[in-house]
């Protein structure tokens, strides 16, 4: 089956509103406001992000061709997006020929239904899971639970998040907001039969997780994973990990179900030579992560004999339809941009409200799920959750120009909110500034604004229509005097005379 192109292209839909985990309950400034008061969170995040920054710089600095690798990685991803239809069809064909079954999902709801149906067909009521952003994005765990299937997260950080009934706050290390003492408490409370003498030494905490999950690995018949890469040329899928939980899930069960975003496809097997250098060094700051698994369909006598690949859209084609925004689809989920971001470091991942936090989340989330799906859509605040400092761009292994994407999204947001009061006010201001008398009068009126400012000279809440501005920043109260009225005063005249005299003196000095 191939679709025939008929007539005008239609704009692809975003991830359906109200599904999955691509939208928070409230806007970033409100959420960040609360997170910033959590001193424990800020200490944990500060320590972790500074550790990983140093490690990343060490191992990227070791490679004299790091910039060439970034250029190659960026171009391979761009080429991939350009040829996405043929590459997806090639991937499907290769996986099918090697004994796998390929499914297509228009959105997260459909993907959840497919996975649930496949699990039910095995008769199993449990699945073991490899850490996966795609399944987090679509809320697969919640869906499985509602269908009577228990998902067990097996990555240590995902396990911590699941046991604590918490939400992930980082792409790579979802429990980055927890320190060792908190993790010890979670394990003591939630792991059945854990040694009550468990201390807070990371190695001992890891050993407790090993003991807890061992039996699950040995007995569970179905695993669900994501994929870091899917090679169109060969049908090879790849999962990059550290702990061996990925290898366990990809190897021991009878059935493996892999959910992969359509943008994760790569054209050639050879392309792995680039991404297997870029990803680990950018992600955990290691020369290579401890384990990478690569499998192609089904191998008789080795690993799951029933393999399903679910290809997920869920707003990716909507992002692809944006000439500028599509660059965000190049992301390989390394999380380097989170670790260098001054905003993420302080606000933490939960403030973004999405599976994808940090700088890349601020550009990816609005594109997958939209930012005007409801009145006061929380996602509309994400493009503003940045100081545009550019550290994310420098750190990105595939050179995604995140600051430019943020600016583009801000532009789209103001365009979309076209007739808002804020926009009308800007037009009014432009009109006033063109007329000197009116401008002077307006400045005099603004002096009254001092009344609004508190003792610290800041206005934190402006009345409508300007509350959109003051929601995300404090406004300095206007000065006592406008510049023009100061200039006309005795003090202003004296200062200007003094400046003129000094200029004359300098000129004379130079002539000498």
């Amino acid at each position, binding site marked *: 089956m191939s*679709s025939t*192109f008929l007539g005008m292209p239609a*704009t692809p839909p975003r991830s359906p509103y109200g599904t999955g985990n691509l939208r928070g309950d409230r806007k970033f400034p409100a959420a960040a406001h609360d997170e910033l008061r959590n001193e424990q969170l800020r200490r944990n995040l500060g320590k972790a992000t500074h*550790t990983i920054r140093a490690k990343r710089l060490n191992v990227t600095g070791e490679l*004299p*061709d790091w910039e*060439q690798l970034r*250029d*190659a990685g960026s171009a391979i991803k761009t080429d991939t997006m*350009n040829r996405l*239809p043929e590459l*997806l069809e090639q991937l499907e064909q290769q996986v099918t020929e090697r004994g796998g079954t390929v499914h*297509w*999902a*228009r959105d997260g709801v459909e993907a959840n239904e497919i996975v649930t149906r496949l699990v039910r067909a095995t008769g199993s009521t449990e699945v073991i899971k490899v850490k996966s952003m795609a399944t987090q994005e679509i809320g697969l765990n919640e869906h499985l639970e509602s269908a009577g299937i228990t998902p067990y997260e*097996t990555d*240590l*950080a995902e396990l911590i998040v699941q046991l604590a009934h918490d939400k992930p706050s980082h792409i790579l290390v979802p*429990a980055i907001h927890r320190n*060792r003492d908190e*993790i010890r408490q979670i394990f003591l409370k939630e792991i059945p039969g854990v040694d009550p003498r468990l201390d807070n030494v*990371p190695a001992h*905490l890891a050993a407790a*997780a090993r003991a807890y999950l*061992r039996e699950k*690995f*040995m007995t569970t018949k179905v695993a669900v994973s994501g994929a870091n890469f899917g090679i169109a*040329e*060969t049908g*090879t899928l790849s999962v990059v990990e*550290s*702990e*061996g*939980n990925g*290898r*366990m899930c*990809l190897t021991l069960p009878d059935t493996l179900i892999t959910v992969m975003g359509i943008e994760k496809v790569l054209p050639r*097997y*050879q392309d792995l030579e680039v991404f297997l*250098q870029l990803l680990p060094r950018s992600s*955990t700051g*290691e020369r*290579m*992560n*401890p*384990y990478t*698994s*690569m*499998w*192609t369909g089904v*191998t008789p*006598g*080795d*690993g799951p004999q029933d393999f399903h690949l679910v290809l997920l859209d869920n707003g990716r*084609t*909507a992002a*692809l*339809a944006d*000439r500028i925004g*599509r660059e965000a689809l190049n992301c390989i989920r390394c999380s380097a941009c989170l670790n260098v971001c001054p905003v993420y470091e302080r606000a933490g991942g939960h403030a973004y409200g999405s599976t994808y936090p940090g700088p890349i989340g601020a550009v990816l989330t609005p594109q997958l799920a939209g930012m005007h799906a409801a009145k006061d859509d929380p996602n509309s605040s994400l493009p503003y959750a940045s100081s545009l400092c550019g550290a994310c761009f420098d750190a990105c292994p595939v050179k995604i120009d995140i600051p430019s994407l943020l600016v583009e999204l801000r532009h789209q947001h103001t365009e979309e909110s076209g007739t808002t009061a804020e926009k009308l006010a800007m037009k009014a201001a432009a009109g006033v500034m063109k007329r000197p008398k009116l401008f002077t009068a307006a400045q005099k009126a603004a002096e009254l604004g001092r009344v609004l400012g508190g003792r610290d000279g800041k206005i934190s809440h402006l009345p409508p229509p300007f509350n959109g501005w003051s929601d995300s920043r404090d406004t300095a109260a206007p000065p006592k005097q406008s510049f023009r009225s100061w200039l006309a005063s005795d003090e202003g005249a004296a200062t200007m005379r003094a400046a003129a005299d000094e200029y004359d003196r300098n000129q004379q000095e130079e002539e000498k």
Partner: protein
Amino acid sequence: MTTARATVLGRVRDALALAPTQDTTIPRDYRTGRTLPDDERLALFTDRLVDYKAKVHTCTAARTAEVIAQVLDGLGARRIGVPAGLDEQWLGAYDGDVQQDSADIPAPRLDALDGVVTASAVGCAETGTIFLDGSPDQGRRALSLVPDLHVCVVDLSAVEVGVPEAVARLVPERPTTLISGPSATSDIELERVEGVHGPRTLVVVIRVDA
């Protein structure tokens, strides 16, 4: 009714039609095709393996059995699994119990082994990585995963300088596992801790003349 497949592929084509693409050439100016003399490759590979907490032994091919026996005895491993295609002579000096693997042995039973001895397909010096590809002397993936000790024999002639050189030697269709040190996690405060679900001890025996 339109299938999900047709819908998704149609959307992708629509997206590319709405926002036309720019032709891209892929610059591959990064380092490829590198070679290094044996002693330098050995030094680099060893340094990287040790850095990620693998134990390294170097020997000649003639001493393979002797070194493997020493390693297993030293770690107190009395019950060892081996893939069906492993050179039998490699365990000739070992006096413990050797269980030859086969696909019908359930994976949980591998948990009763003290360790496993396998060969390897390729090595990468710059990253300290070993590649297993399921060949008869490496066995199915579960065998080198479930036991807590993995003794892996690597021939220096199969150790490439960097990632591109190593990936070029792989056979894509084979189930391939890249191993760089023992199992580890950085999930607690981003500090690396060795030993989670995979083998907690990785011993690499490098044969310098093989």
